[in-house]
């Protein structure tokens, strides 16, 4: 290396994508650089000119425009531009001019192409948007996949299945022969629709129970039963199963919650295997697991409140161990749900059994399994249609207050919008809820749209799940056929927009203004979630989680091919940035919030965030176009 080029080489080597290059490649660039000075206000790239060089800003500042003259980006020292054109037809598509005195290092196309060929990271970096977000999201996924690994991956073989008429001894032989530790017990019929399936000959069977090694001890030998006893007489009626697309983590929590060591894995109603606690022990992490069991061991709301610091500690540990946003969101939601469930159990202990069946519903981020460490509570009560306000409401009001106060004490602050079961409006029988939802979709007003965006993320966490399912079905059936509602929701989803990107220590707005910090929820994740919800409503998806909604959306023609992947990567990255900055807040003894300050954003994160904002911006533009206001309505 010629020492005289160190000046150039060392400068470039500080900035992505050059920071990851081998010394040899860095030398090759420095050797070939061409330099030019541009005074403030002068053009660097002119639209449609031929471009055969990559531009690197050695000093100064540059603005890049869209064809229509709209500001596309503002760049500073160490940034590059022009790669978009080099990868395509070598015509300038984004003109650029110097907004300060600027020194540009031009890197000839031949060198640029060599870099793309020889260094994958460099190639990923310069290919716009998708790959960088994808790489960032994939790297996070790689590092720890307990939350995204589906439980079906741990199923290695078909379950041992025995008819309920078989003798205990016969079953014991079969289990031993298969070197298994449990067998599923089945019988003919379909009285239990949840577990009914057809075999290859078309015969209908249903799973009626499971018999494990330890059952032989406790239910057969200890009871002194004969080896000839029919197995159907021995098994318990309580069957805990898990769906094959649930995560390993959920399976673990299900085992813990129900105190079982074997879990039949179902594909819809059909059993596909049995997992044992030992199968998932290698996935075990301390995060969440002990905390959840601890939650269920608490006997008072005060005891639960003392666990709040543990939640924050588990959060920090998960992020440090490389969890991705879905894992963190799901874990925090599970923890939040556990708090709520335990509070409901305690409330029922104190108040007595409920006078009519009810379902405790959560909304917002907890329903989506996307909870963050900075969160309030959104919940509601769906009561049985037998509900009589005069007789029963006192009980449910007390129940709601117990849970709501308890959650507040545990760090889930009261909802500012009063979306809580303590609010009589949100403590109603099912038929009233159905009417609410129908009205909101038929005649959207600003207030109803706001309600829709909160309540249309909904999940049951305690009681009669079927009530929430009925509402989910109602939405999935009605929303796709309500163009006016979709158009209104789409417009509502455009109220919050992303910034353009970063410039030095500022956040850059589209009009060129600077800000010192950015609320990443308000300007990133929330508008993204809003946008995904609109598409999910349009395609009748019943999924609540934004990533699962995107999956459903990608199976339709609503978005162009590949767009839902892009959105998914962008959302993952936005969520993760927010999470990382909350961890920084916690580590520095600050109250975590949703703000990030540009000076705390690393270079590589800046570029990826900028891409994510761009993806969101494009998706918002498309949303308006995709869900136009129906014309007959406009005529009125």
């Amino acid at each position, binding site marked *: 290396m*010629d*020492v*005289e*080029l*160190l*000046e*150039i080489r060392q400068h470039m080597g500080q900035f992505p994508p050059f920071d990851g290059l081998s010394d040899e490649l860095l030398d090759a660039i*420095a*050797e*070939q*650089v*061409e*330099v*030019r*000075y*541009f*005074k*403030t206000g*002068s053009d660097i790239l002119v639209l449609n000119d031929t471009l055969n060089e990559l531009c690197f800003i*050695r*000093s*100064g500042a540059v603005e890049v425009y869209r064809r229509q003259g709209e500001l596309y980006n503002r760049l500073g020292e160490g940034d590059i531009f022009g790669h978009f054109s080099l990868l395509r037809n070598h015509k300038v598509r984004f003109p650029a001019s110097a907004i*300060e*005195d*600027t*020194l540009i290092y*031009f890197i000839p196309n031949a060198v640029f192409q060599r870099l793309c060929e020889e260094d994958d990271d460099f190639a990923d970096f310069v290919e716009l948007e998708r790959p960088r977000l994808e790489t960032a999201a994939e790297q996070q996924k790689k590092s720890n996949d307990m939350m995204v690994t589906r439980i079906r991956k741990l199923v290695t073989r078909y379950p041992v299945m025995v008819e309920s008429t078989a003798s205990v001894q016969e079953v014991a032989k079969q289990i031993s022969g298969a070197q298994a530790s449990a067998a599923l017990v089945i019988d003919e019929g379909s009285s239990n629709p949840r577990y009914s399936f057809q075999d290859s000959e078309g015969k209908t069977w249903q799973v009626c129970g499971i018999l494990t090694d330890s059952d032989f001890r406790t239910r057969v030998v200890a009871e002194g039963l004969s080896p000839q006893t029919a197995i159907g007489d021995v098994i318990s009626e309580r069957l805990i199963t898990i769906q094959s697309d649930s995560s390993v983590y959920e399976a673990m929590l299900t085992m813990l919650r129900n105190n079982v060591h074997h879990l039949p894995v179902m594909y819809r109603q059909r059993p596909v295997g049995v997992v044992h606690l030992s199968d998932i022990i290698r996935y075990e992490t301390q995060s969440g697991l002990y905390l959840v069991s601890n939650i269920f061991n608490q006997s008072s709301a005060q005891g639960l409140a003392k666990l709040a610091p543990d939640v924050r500690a588990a959060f920090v540990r998960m992020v440090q161990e490389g969890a991705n946003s879905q894992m963190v969101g799901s874990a925090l939601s599970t923890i939040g749900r556990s708090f709520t469930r335990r509070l409901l159990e305690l409330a029922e202990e104190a108040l007595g059994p409920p006078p009519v069946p009810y379902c405790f519903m959560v909304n917002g981020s907890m329903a989506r399994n996307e909870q963050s460490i900075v969160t309030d509570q959104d919940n509601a009560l769906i009561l049985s249609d037998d509900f009589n306000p005069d007789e029963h409401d006192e009980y449910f009001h007390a129940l709601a207050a117990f849970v709501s106060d308890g959650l507040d004490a545990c760090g889930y602050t009261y909802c500012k919008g009063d979306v809580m079961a303590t609010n009589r409006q949100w403590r109603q029988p099912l038929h009233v809820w159905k009417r609410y939802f129908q009205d909101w979709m038929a005649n959207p007003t600003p207030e109803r749209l706001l309600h829709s965006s909160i309540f249309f993320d909904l999940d049951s966490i305690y009681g009669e799940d079927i009530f929430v399912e009925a509402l989910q079905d109602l939405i999935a059936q009605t929303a796709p056929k309500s163009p006016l509602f979709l158009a209104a929701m789409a417009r509502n989803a455009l109220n919050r927009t992303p910034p353009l990107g970063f410039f030095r220590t500022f956040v850059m707005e589209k009009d060129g203004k600077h800000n010192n910090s950015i609320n990443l929820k308000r300007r990133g994740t929330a508008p993204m979630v809003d946008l995904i919800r609109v598409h999910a409503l349009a395609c009748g998806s019943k999924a609540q989680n934004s990533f699962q909604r995107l999956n459903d959306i990608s199976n339709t023609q609503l978005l162009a091919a590949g767009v839902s992947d892009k959105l998914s990567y962008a959302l993952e990255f936005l969520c993760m940035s927010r999470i990382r900055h909350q961890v920084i807040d916690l580590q520095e003894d600050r109250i975590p919030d949703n703000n990030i300050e540009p000076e705390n954003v690393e270079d590589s994160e800046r570029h990826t965030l900028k891409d994510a904002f761009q993806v969101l911006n494009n998706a918002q533009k498309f949303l308006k176009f995709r869900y136009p206001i129906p014309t007959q309505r406009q005529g009125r």
Partner: protein
Amino acid sequence: MFEIRPRKKVVQANWEGYMAERAQRVHDDALKRFFDMPLPSPDTPIGKVPMVALDMETTGLDERRHAIVSIGVVPFTLDRIPLAQRRYWVVKPSRPLDEASIAYHHITHSEIANAPDLDAVLDELLEVLAGRLVVVHFRNIERPFLDAAVKARRGEGVLFPMIDTMSLEARMHRQTLWARFRRWLGRPPVSIRLNASRERYGLPAYQGHHALVDALATAELLQAQMSYHYTPETPLKALWC
């Protein structure tokens, strides 16, 4: 110092005549090739002039007592400074190196011990300079040192027109009415050294006192000066000296 005098009339040297005359009389082959290569005419717009930035590190400031240690050159135009065409030589000074100058330009005894005499690189140097207008920052080093060194080795010296970025800077900051008024008021003069001048145009600070880095820095400075105070159409004769 108590009156504001009118600016002195700058007398334009007749470089064309001088170069043609030298081409006629020169004996050394390399020098003959150099003087044979015509320079752009004085009326050529600066935007069309091929240039070469030149910088030398020396053991001191007096060409009679000190010697050249290294030479850096970068051919360029107002459009581009292509680093691929840069050249850089370390040469063995005919006079011993003193410790103070080592600290200054970071070239060590061992580097110099293995370096050739200027005579061995002179042909290559003249080839790069030929046909290009030489740009320096402070011509009173490069011009006399090169002339003296060539004279000592080839028996005849070498002089040619140069653009001096320092004197262009001086025109702005030392010779204007405003500058003389400032001086009359007793204000310290604006620095016209390379780094201070670059700073005024928003150019980054480079690690100084390396002949090639300084040559590059000089080329960038000229581009900046041209874009602020002149145009690509400014004729060469308004700039050279």
